[in-house]
C-alpha cells in the first residue's frame, strides 16, 4: 500500500547508482514528502479531501499520487528511480519509473489548479519530464536542451504551471527519451473539469491505463532498450495478462476508459458486448457531432483515446488489443509452424537426445496453454490465464470487463466469474449433422478463371486429430 516513508530513509533500498547523500537534506526539507508505492495492484481512487472536488479515476494496476496544498498551489513530488515492477505473478522486470512503480503514479488535478511538481532524479543519468499535451509556459515543457537543462542525477527540479484545460494527458522524459521510455518512464495526468462541462459527461467509473511494450529476454530482467518493433511483451501499465486486473463495474454504470499509447506501434483496442464512443483525445473532449459508436478504436502512437459506454450487458467481456500477437506473452517469433506435421517415430529419436522433449504445435498452439511445462526463470507462458471454462489462452494486452448487477458503487473488487442464466451459454450440438452443400465452381459468373493451373490443386482440409498415436 501507500507508504509515506522518508525519502532519505528509503534511499538505501534503491538500487540506483546515485547515492542519497547527493540530495541535500536541507533542500529536501522544503519539499513535499515523496510517496512510494510498493504494490502493483490497482489502488482505490484517491478521493480529494482538499482543493476543488472531482470524481477521481482508477489507474489499472496503479495508483494516484497524493499531493499537499501550499499557499493554494498543489504540490506533487515525483522521484525518477530504478524500480522492480512485477509485470505478472512470477515475472519481475527491472525498469525505471517514478515513486516505486512503472508507470509512475497518476497525477490528478482540476482545471485551473496551479500545480507545482518537484522532480528528483535518482536515475544514473540525467532526465527531464515532459507534460504531454499540456498548455504551459514553454520553459515548463520539459524538453532537455531545448527548454531547460537536464536534471542531473541527485538534483531536484521544479515544474510549475496552471492546468489550463481539462483532459487526459501523460508525462514522460524528454531526455535520452528512447532509453528512458523503453525502460518504463511514463505516467498519466488527468485534469478534471472545474465545473460541469457540456462535452464531458459525469461517469460512474473512470479507468486509465497506458499502453507500453518491452523486450525482455525470457529469464532476463532488464528490457532491451534498442528494440524498435519486435517487442515480446505488450503491456497495459507495465502488466501483462494474466497479471492485469479486471475492470469491475456495476450494471448500467456509465464507464469511461482513458488509454494512452507510448509504444512504437498502434493498438486497435476492442471491447466485447458493448459499443462505445470516443469522447476525447489528447486535444480534449470530442464534439458530440463527431462521435460514432464502434467496438474497436485504434490508438495510434503518442495518442490518447477516451472511450465511454454504458455497461448494460451483464457478463465477463473480453477487452483487448486486436493485434493478436499483442495478446501473447514472450514467444519465439522464428518458431516454425508445426501444424499438421506427423511426429510419429521422429519423437522417439528426439527424446533419445532431449529426454524432456514434448511435441508441441502439431495441432496448433493451444497445447501451450493446456500443458504447464517448466519455463526459463522469470517468464510467463506466452498464453495463459484460467477462466471458468478452461484456459483463456491469452497474454499481454488483454483483460476482462466484468459487469455485475450487484457490484456496489465505488466497489472495484473482483466479483468472480459470471453466473450465466440458464440457456445462455453456447453448448455442444448432439443431433445429426447434414452434409453441407459445397459450390464446386467458385467465381463462375463474375470472373471466370482463364488460366487454370496445369494440375488441379485441391486444398485438403486436415481435420484436427486429438487422439492420434504419439
Amino acid at each position, binding site marked *: 500500500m501507500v507508504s509515506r516513508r522518508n525519502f532519505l530513509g528509503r534511499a538505501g533500498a534503491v538500487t540506483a547508482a546515485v547515492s542519497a547523500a547527493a540530495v541535500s537534506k536541507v533542500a529536501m526539507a522544503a519539499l513535499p514528502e515523496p510517496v512510494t508505492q510498493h504494490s502493483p495492484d490497482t489502488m482505490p481512487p484517491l478521493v480529494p479531501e482538499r482543493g476543488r472536488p472531482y470524481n477521481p479515476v482508477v489507474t489499472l494496476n496503479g495508483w494516484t499520487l497524493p499531493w499537499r496544498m501550499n499557499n493554494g498551489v498543489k504540490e506533487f513530488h515525483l522521484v525518477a528511480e530504478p524500480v522492480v515492477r512485477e509485470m505478472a505473478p512470477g515475472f519481475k522486470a527491472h525498469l525505471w519509473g517514478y515513486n516505486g512503480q512503472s508507470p509512475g503514479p497518476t497525477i490528478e488535478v482540476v482545471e485551473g489548479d496551479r500545480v507545482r511538481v518537484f522532480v528528483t532524479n535518482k536515475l544514473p543519468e540525467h532526465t527531464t519530464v515532459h507534460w504531454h499535451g499540456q498548455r504551459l509556459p514553454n520553459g515548463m515543457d520539459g524538453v532537455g536542451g531545448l527548454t531547460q537543462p537536464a536534471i542531473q542525477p541527485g538534483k531536484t527540479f521544479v515544474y510549475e504551471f496552471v492546468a489550463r484545460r481539462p483532459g487526459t494527458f501523460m508525462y514522460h522524459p524528454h531526455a535520452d527519451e528512447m532509453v528512458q521510455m523503453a525502460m518504463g518512464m511514463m505516467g498519466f495526468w488527468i485534469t478534471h473539469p472545474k465545473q460541469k462541462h457540456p462535452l464531458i459527461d459525469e461517469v460512474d467509473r473512470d479507468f486509465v491505463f497506458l499502453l507500453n511494450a518491452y523486450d525482455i529476454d525470457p529469464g532476463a530482467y532488464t528490457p532491451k532498450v534498442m528494440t524498435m518493433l519486435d517487442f515480446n511483451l505488450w503491456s497495459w501499465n507495465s502488466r501483462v495478462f494474466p497479471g492485469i486486473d479486471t475492470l469491475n463495474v456495476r450494471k448500467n454504470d456509465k464507464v469511461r476508459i482513458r488509454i494512452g499509447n507510448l509504444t512504437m506501434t498502434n493498438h486497435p483496442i476492442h471491447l466485447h458486448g458493448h459499443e462505445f464512443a470516443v469522447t476525447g483525445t489528447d486535444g480534449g473532449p470530442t464534439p458530440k457531432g463527431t462521435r460514432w459508436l464502434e467496438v474497436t478504436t485504434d490508438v495510434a502512437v503518442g495518442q490518447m483515446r477516451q472511450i465511454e459506454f454504458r455497461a448494460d450487458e451483464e457478463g465477463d467481456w473480453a477487452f483487448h488489443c486486436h493485434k493478436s500477437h499483442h495478446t501473447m506473452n514472450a514467444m519465439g517469433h522464428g518458431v516454425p509452424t508445426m501444424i499438421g506435421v506427423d*511426429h510419429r517415430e521422429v519423437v522417439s*529419436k528426439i527424446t533419445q537426445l*532431449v529426454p524432456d*522433449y514434448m511435441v508441441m504445435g502439431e495441432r496448433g498452439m493451444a497445447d501451450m496453454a493446456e500443458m504447464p511445462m517448466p519455463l526459463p526463470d522469470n517468464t510467463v507462458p506466452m498464453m495463459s490465464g484460467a477462466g471458468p471454462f478452461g484456459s483463456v489462452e491469452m497474454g499481454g494486452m488483454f483483460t476482462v470487463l466484468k459487469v455485475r448487477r450487484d457490484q456496489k458503487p465505488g466497489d472495484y473488487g473482483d466479483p468472480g466469474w459470471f453466473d450465466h442464466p440458464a440457456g445462455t451459454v453456447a453448448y455442444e450440438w448432439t443431433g445429426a449433422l447434414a452434409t453441407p452443400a459445397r459450390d464446386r465452381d467458385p467465381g463462375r459468373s463474375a470472373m471466370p478463371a482463364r488460366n487454370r493451373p496445369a494440375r488441379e490443386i485441391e486444398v485438403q482440409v486436415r481435420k484436427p486429430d486429438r487422439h492420434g498415436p504419439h
Partner: protein
Amino acid sequence: MTTPRHACAAAARGLPLVLASLALAGCASFSPDGGFDTVEQVAQERLGKDVVWARTAENQNRIDTRVAELLTRPLTVDDAVQVALLNNKGLQARFFELGIGEAELVQASRLPNPGISFGRLKRGDEIELERGYHLNLARLLAMPLVRQVEERRFAQTRGVVTLQLLSLASEARKAYFNAVAAEETVRYRRQVQQAAEAGAELARRMAEVGNFNKLQRLREQGFYADATLGMARAEHAALASRERLTRLMGLWGPQTRFQLPERLPDLPEAPTDQPEIERAALAQRLDVQGAKLAAEQTAKSLGLTRTTRFVNVLELGRAHNSSNEAPTQTGWELGLELPLFDWGGARVARAEAVYMQALSRAAETAVNARSEVREAYGAYRSAWDIARHHRDELVPLRQRIAEENVLRYNGMLIGVFELLAAARSQIAGVNACIESLRDFWLAQADLEMALIGKPGLSGAALALGSSPAAGDVGADH
C-alpha cells in the same frame, strides 16, 4: 655384460699363453638366457609386464595361452600392452637379434685356430723335416679388444631391443586410448546423426504438409548429410585406430574380435607432480645410459689402442726341426713388426676422435633427454588441465545450456530445429571432452616413455580437437 666373460678377458691378458688360450676356449660358449634376462628385467621393472621369447614350442604355448586368456574380457590398457609385448611378432623378431648378436660375440671369443707347418727339405742326402706349430699371437692378443667390440655391439643390441620393447609398449598404450576414444566418438557421432536425421525427417514432413519451403527443408537435409559424412569419417577413424592396435598386439583371425571397454579411464583426480623429473629421466633413460656406456667403452678401446699400437703383428710359434744328420732342433720363434713407418699414431688419433665423438653424443643425448622430458611433462600437465576444464566446465555448461534450451522450447521461444541444433552442439561438446581425455592419456603415455627412452611426442595433436564455443547455440526467440 656378464661377469664370467669379463673375468675371462682379464685372465687372457695376465696368464701364460697356453693357460690363457684354455681359459678363453672355456668361456666362449652361449649363455643360457641369450641376453634376454636384461630385456625381461626391464619389462618387469619399468612396465610390470611379462615378456617371453618364443624360442621353443613350449614358450610359444605359454604365450598363446596367456594371450587367449587376456582376450576373453574387455581389454584394459595394461592387458593391451601385455598382449602386444607377448604377441607382437616384430618384437619376437627383435629378440632373435639377441641370438644373432650373441652368436657373433661367441664367434669373436673363440681362439684362432692354431696352424701347423711341416716341411721336408733335402740337401744331398740330408733330409730335414721342419715342423712348426704356430698361433696367431696378435689375434690372441687382440682378442680382448675384439671381444669388447663384440660385447659392446651385443650390449647395444640388448639396448636397442629393450628400447623397442618399451616403445612398443608405449605405442600399444597410445593405440589403445586412440581406439577406445574413437569408438566412443562413433557412438556420439551416431547420436548427432540421429538428431540431424530427426530434423531432416521432420523437415520433410513439414514440407509435405506445406509448412516448410524447399530451401528450409534442404537446409535441414544438409545438416543430416553433413552428420552422415562425420559419422562415416568417425567410423573409419575407429576402424583404423582399432586395426593399429590389432597390429601392435599381433592379432589375427578370430582374435581380432577382441573387446574394448565403452569408456576411457577417468581422469585422475590430480596430475602427478614431478619436480625431479629431469634427474629421474637422466638416471633412468636407456638412451642416456647407452650413450654413457658407449663413451666408457670407447674410452677403453682408446686405452687399448694406445697400449697395443706397436704389438699389432706378433707371431709366436714353436719350431721343431729334425734332421737325419743332426740333432733335432727345437725352439720358439717370434716375429715382430718393426714400427719404422707406422707408429700407430693415426689409429690413436682415430680412437681419440671416436671417443670425443661418443662424449659429445652422450652430452647431446642428455640435453635432449632433459628437454624431451620437460616437454612431455608440460604436455601432460596441459592435457590434464584441458581435460579437467572440459569435464568440469565445458560439459556442465553445455548441459545447462541444453536444459535452458528445453525450457525455451517449452515456452515456444525456440523451435524444435533450434533445440536439435543445440542438442547436436551439446553432443559435440561431450565428444570434445572425450577427445581431451584421450589426449591426456596419450600425453601420459608419452611422459612415461620420455622417462625411460626417447618418446614419440604427440604433443601437436593437443592443439587440434577443435570444438565450437559454448555460447554459440543461443537461440533468438
